[in-house]
């Protein structure tokens, strides 16, 4: 194994162990599990994949950024404050390697915290759903486990993007308080801020209806929502209404991820 890869792995393992030993992370996991299962079980009287996906979409638009920000907002800032980043400068670990390690470690924890509740709901649906097809059908009008799997994958993708943004905020923070403030800013920005900007632009005539789907792709939450509509819900419901252009939405999410990594790396390099 190369030195760089080994260093990334060591940093990632440390992040994962940190989260695994954190009581706050355990509480977060239990809370997310309870919330997701409760919404899935009480949100609809119809225990099928598609209605449950629709029920979960809006709560997860808020829950996912909250969990991702909670997991990521302090980690780099704390390493800087403790002087551990100074010490790491004397090791063969590049800034990019450190950022990659922190991201991979926290992402693994995030996938567990969000993935297990979603998997649990999937299992419950598989057991309770009365008309689950024996084949993983993807054609229009057919409710299937594939619908829910796609939804779960997109949810984790959304979490990945917000985690990258939270790490960027953490790298920019200069104190514990500023880390918290920046985390709240990121959360507000992701959950409502960008969408409100788009709505204001649309209402003010700055964004035309012909460009609305493209502009919405620039908001991580709208991009996620659009992808769920286009690649999950639309596959099961026969409709000609286009909610989003999936390519734009994927590019929007990639843009925020790349931008966040760039900000994180530059912020740490120019300390």
């Amino acid at each position, binding site marked *: 194994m190369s*030195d760089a890869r*080994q*260093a990334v*792995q*060591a940093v990632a*393992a*440390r992040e994962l*162990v*940190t989260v695994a*030993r*954190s009581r706050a992370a355990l509480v977060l996991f239990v809370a997310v599990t309870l919330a997701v299962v409760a919404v899935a079980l009480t949100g609809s009287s119809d225990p099928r994949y598609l209605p449950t996906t629709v029920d979960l979409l809006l709560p997860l638009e808020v829950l996912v950024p909250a969990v991702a920000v909670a997991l990521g907002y302090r980690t780099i800032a*704390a*390493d800087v404050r*403790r*002087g*551990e980043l*100074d*010490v*790491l*400068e*004397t*090791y*063969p*670990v590049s800034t990019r390697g450190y950022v990659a390690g922190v991201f991979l470690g926290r992402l693994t924890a995030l996938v567990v915290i969000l993935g297990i509740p979603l998997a649990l709901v999937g299992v419950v649906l598989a057991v309770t759903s009365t008309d689950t097809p024996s084949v993983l059908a993807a054609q229009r009008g057919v409710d299937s486990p594939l619908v829910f799997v796609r939804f779960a994958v997109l949810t984790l993708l959304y979490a990945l993007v917000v985690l990258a943004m939270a790490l960027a905020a953490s790298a920019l923070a200069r104190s514990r308080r500023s880390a918290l403030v920046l985390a709240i800013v990121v959360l507000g920005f992701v959950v409502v801020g960008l969408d409100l900007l788009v709505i204001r632009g649309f209402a003010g005539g700055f964004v035309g209806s012909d460009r609305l789907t493209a502009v919405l792709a620039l908001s991580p939450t709208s991009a996620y929502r659009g992808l769920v509509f286009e690649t999950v819900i639309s596959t099961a419901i026969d409709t000609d209404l286009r909610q989003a252009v999936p390519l734009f939405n994927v590019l929007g999410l990639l843009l925020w991820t790349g931008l966040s990594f760039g900000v994180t790396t530059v912020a740490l390099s120019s300390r």
Partner: protein
Amino acid sequence: MTEQLTHQTEPGTVDGGVLVADDLSRQFGSVTVIDGLSLGLEAGELHALVGPNGSGKTTLLQLLAGIDSPTAGAVRYEGPAAPRKIGYLPQRPSFRPGFTARETLEFYTALVDTDPEGLLDRVGLADAADRRVDELSGGMVRLLGLAQATVGDPPVILLDEPGSGLDPGMRRRMAELGRELAADGAAVLYSSHDLELVEAHSDRVFVVDGGSIVDRGAPDSLRGAYGVETLWDAFEAAVDSSGDLDVIGVSDS
């Protein structure tokens, strides 16, 4: 002990060595913290950095460690190829809470693909290996920091006030560990206000004031040059003669 430098070395000249600072300057805005400073660290020697508070010791160590970048001048590593060239102990070492001393060192050793075994033993923390770092005393954290600074057997080891805040016994232990590291071939530089320990253990002393080295040499030669009995007196004389007198912050304890 290797050959001692004579006192006649001119402040500002570059010595040879495994780590060389050449005409180093560091400014923060309009404040010059390091001003055209040059020095070299020799393998197998224990070097001490002494100077009043605010004289630029910590900044100099950070520049030498590559943590900070100089405004002018350069730091050159001239030592052997090594996975980790420079080890560094910050003034206030701190580690991620929730991990034991052993796990902390396992993390750092994994970064350079070496074995953590023996590191805790060397600094006398073997019995505390399974204690969490947030449960260690200040002295133990500093010892763990010293163990961290030696991970990967770096040819250059920089220690920022390793004895600060420790009891006399622990301070002596720190100095002895520095001595042992130098005996193993490393070039060790540590900053200290404890001139008695510096006098007893160091091969070479750099006296820093106002961001410059105002004198340098073996403790014996520094004493001889000023015709005084102790390194403390030589230090006072060196700082006095630099014309930038500020020894209020320096204690001899």
